C-alpha cells in the first residue's frame, strides 16, 4: 500500500529528483538563515573562548579588581551626586548601556515583524531606531574606554586597579602611619602622577584606595620615598604597615593590579564593540536596500532583515555574558 510519503517520493523521482538532489529543506528554514545560525554558533564559541580565558586567569590570580570600583563613573559627573556611596555610581553607566542594547534588540524584532507584513516604511523606521540604539551603545563604550585610558591610566599592560591583601594602615609622606586604614578585599585605584597633578585628586575615583588627597611633593618617576614609591610609569604606590596576621608590623608596597585585567577588558569589550560596529554597517546597508524597495522586487519577503536581525540579537546575547563576567560577578 502506498502511503502519502512514498507517493510524494515517487512524484519527485519521476521529475528526475531524489532525496539528495536539493529542493528540500528538512529544517524548514532557508539556506541563508540556517547558515547565519551556524555562523553565530561558531562566533559563540569564539566569545566563549575569550570569556573562559578571563575566568581562568581570574581563578589563577590571588586578587582581582573589584568591578564596582573599576566601573563606578558616569559621564557629566553624574556619579558625584551619589553622595550616599561617597560619590561613586557603581555599575550605573554600564546598566544604561545594557538597556540601550536591549531596546535596540526589541526595535529589531519590531522591524522583522513589519517585514512579515511587507510594510516597507515600518521596516525602515524600526531599523533606523535599531541603528540609533546601537550607535548610542558604541558611543557609551567609547566614553568608558577613554575614561579608563585617559583618566585612570589603564592600558593593555598596566592595571592600576588592585585589591588589598592585608588589613593595614597607609604610611604618610614622611613614612609614619597616617591613620588611613583599609581591610582585606577593599578595592583601590593607584593614581598616576600625570593624573594626580592635573586633577588634584578630585577625579572620578576620589575615595577609593586612600590615594585621594595624597599629594606627595616628590613625584619623579622611579623614586623610592619613605612613605611611597613612584614607579617608572608614574604610578604612586603607597606603602602600608600590616596590622594583624603573621606579617603584622611589616611594611609592604601597594601592588599594581593583576596585569591581565587591562588586556582582557580591552580585548573582549573591544571584540564585542567590533561586532556592534559591523552590525551597524550591515544594518545601514540593509536599511538602504529596504528603502530602495529591493526586497519587494526580489519577492523574498524581507528575509535579509531577518538574517541581520539574528545577528543583532546575538550581539545583545553576547553582551548579556560580557556584562555578567566583567561587571556583575
Amino acid at each position, binding site marked *: 500500500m502506498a502511503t502519502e510519503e512514498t507517493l510524494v517520493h515517487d512524484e519527485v523521482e519521476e521529475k528526475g529528483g531524489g532525496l539528495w538532489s536539493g529542493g528540500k529543506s*528538512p*529544517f*524548514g*528554514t532557508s539556506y541563508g538563515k*540556517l547558515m547565519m*545560525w*551556524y555562523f*553565530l*554558533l561558531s562566533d*559563540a*564559541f569564539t566569545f*566563549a*573562548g575569550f570569556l*573562559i*580565558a578571563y*575566568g*581562568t*586567569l*581570574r*581563578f*589563577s*590570580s*590571588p586578587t582581582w579588581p*573589584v*568591578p*564596582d570600583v573599576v566601573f563606578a563613573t558616569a559621564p557629566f559627573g553624574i556619579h558625584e551626586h551619589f553622595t550616599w*556611596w561617597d560619590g561613586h555610581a*557603581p*555599575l550605573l553607566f554600564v*546598566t544604561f548601556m*545594557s*538597556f540601550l542594547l*536591549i*531596546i535596540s*534588540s*526589541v526595535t*529589531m*524584532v*519590531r522591524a522583522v*515583524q513589519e517585514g*512579515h*507584513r511587507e510594510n516597507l516604511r515600518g521596516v525602515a523606521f524600526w531599523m533606523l531606531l535599531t541603528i540609533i540604539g546601537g550607535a548610542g551603545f558604541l558611543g557609551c563604550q567609547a566614553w568608558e574606554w577613554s575614561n579608563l585610558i585617559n583618566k585612570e591610566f589603564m592600558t593593555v599592560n598596566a592595571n592600576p586597579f588592585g585589591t588589598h591583601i592585608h588589613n593595614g594602615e597607609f604610611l604618610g609622606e614622611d613614612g609614619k602611619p597616617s591613620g588611613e586604614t583599609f*581591610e582585606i*578585599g577593599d578595592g583601590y585605584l593607584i593614581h598616576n602622577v600625570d593624573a594626580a597633578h592635573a586633577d588634584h585628586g578630585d577625579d572620578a575615583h576620589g575615595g577609593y584606595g586612600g590615594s585621594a588627597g595624597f599629594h606627595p611633593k616628590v613625584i619623579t618617576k622611579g623614586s623610592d620615598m619613605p612613605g611611597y614609591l613612584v614607579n617608572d610609569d608614574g604610578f604612586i604606590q603607597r606603602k602600608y604597615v600590616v596590622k594583624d596576621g603573621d606579617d603584622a608590623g611589616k611594611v609592604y608596597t601597594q601592588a599594581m593590579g593583576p596585569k591581565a585585567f587591562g588586556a582582557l577588558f580591552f580585548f573582549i569589550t573591544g571584540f564585542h564593540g567590533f561586532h556592534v560596529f559591523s552590525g551597524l554597517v550591515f544594518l545601514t546597508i540593509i536599511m538602504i536596500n529596504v528603502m530602495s524597495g529591493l526586497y519587494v522586487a526580489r519577492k523574498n519577503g524581507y528575509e535579509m532583515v531577518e538574517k541581520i*536581525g*539574528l545577528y543583532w*540579537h*546575538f550581539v*545583545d*546575547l553576547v553582551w*548579556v*555574558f560580557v*556584562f*555578567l563576567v566583567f*561587571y*556583575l*560577578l
Partner: protein
Amino acid sequence: MGLSYEDGIKAVYRGLVLLAVVTLIEVAISLFGKGHFGGGVEKMTIVAVICGLLIVILSVYKAYFIIYEFMHLKYEIKGMAMSILLPVLLLVWGIIAFFQEGDSWKDRRELINQKNEIAVESPFLEDQK
C-alpha cells in the same frame, strides 16, 4: 510564525519589560553582594557564592529568552534548534576544565612563594658566602 501580528507586538514589549527588570534585579543582587546596601556582607563567602549563582542563573534565563523569543528558535523545527543548542554543551566541559586549571595555577604560585621564603642552609652554599 507562531503568533498573530497583534499578539506578536504585545509579546515584544512584554519581553522588553522582562529583560529590563531582570537586568535591574541582577545589578541589585551584584551591588548587594559587594556590600553596597549594608556593611559586612561582602566579607562572607556564602553571600558571594549565592549572589554569584543567582546572577548566573538570571543571565542564562535572559539568554534563553533572547534566543527562544527574539531569535525565534522556539518556532523552528526541533532538529534545527538542537543542532544549534547541543554543541554549546561542549562549553560545560570547557568551563569546568579551564577554571580547574586556573585554580591549580594559583595553588602552584602560592606553593612557589612559600618555598621561596624557606631559608636554605646547605653545605654547598657555604663557599658562596
